[in-house]
């Protein structure tokens, strides 16, 4: 079995992941993550 064929599942998953990731950025999900992450998450620290 060639290395390419042996790693084909990983390659397909990685490629799909990359497409999903880029779709997510285009949809503005990264901004949602940023907004959540730069504000103190009271739930995370056990206060809110």
């Amino acid at each position, binding site marked *: 079995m060639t*290395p390419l064929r*042996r*790693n084909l*599942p*990983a*390659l397909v*998953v*990685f490629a*799909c*992941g*990359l*497409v*999903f*990731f*880029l*779709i*997510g*950025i285009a*949809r*503005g*999900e*990264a*901004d*949602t*993550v*940023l907004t*959540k*992450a*730069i504000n*103190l*998450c*009271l*739930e*995370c*620290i*056990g*206060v*809110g």
Partner: protein
Amino acid sequence: MLGKVFSSAGKRLRLWVQVCFTALTNGYAAGFFKGKIYTGSTKAICVPGLNCYSCPGALGSCPIGSLQAVLGSRNYKFSFYILGFLMMVGAVFGRFVCGWLCPFGLVQDLLHKIPFPKKLRKLPGDRWLRWLKVVLLALFVILLPLFVVDIIGQGDPWFCKYVCPSGTLTAGLPLVATNPALQAAVGWLFAWKGLILAVVVLLSIVVYRPFCRYLCPLGVIYGLFNPIAFYRLRVDEEKCTSCGACQRACKLDIPVWRKPNSMECIRCGDCRRACPHGAICSTFSCPSKEKEK
């Protein structure tokens, strides 16, 4: 003798990688003194391990926290961004992330070095307890943030809010300790999360990585990729005598000789170092002719 030197060097390398990666991704040291969190744009990007974005030093975001943030927002009911990130990291590393790059994994590793009269291989009911993390992923990370929403359609990050001891340790404790306003606001929720943290800390001394085994939803996701990731383990069937030395060396009690790519394996490398026949190697170091079990 030489084998012992290499074995010790391998273990130390992992510890150094864990320490350096944790320091690198939590490098905003001023945050710990000021009692504030970093607010730069790098926080739009996730780090691979469980690393609370409200940790004062955090430069990136926790993938589990981010997933709940997106699912719980009123604009999205599916997260391409986080799922894509997890697929890319999972496809390359699988649970190698847990063993080498996760800050809370490092904390548990260090706690397990504390001497204790009777260390346990696993907790009673281990087989069933392992399913707890799957339930937490399905319920607390996905379903509850998605469907239990307030009047404007926003859901809570249930896992972060009610379970995550990593957030309590790396964000809750340092922020509450340095911020008087937060000290005035702590209540039963902080006590509950403190209790979970205390149980995990105490268990970590007795059992190896109890949080990763029984509670971590991120480990469930990366575990799914273990059998297909670029980084996998291989057992050379010609060299393997099924002696079980790998399983005895594995702190997670995985029969590596039968299941080298078990979803529970965090790729610590102890089995490779313990194999007396050198039968276990990774896809990055093996000759390609060796068969994968």
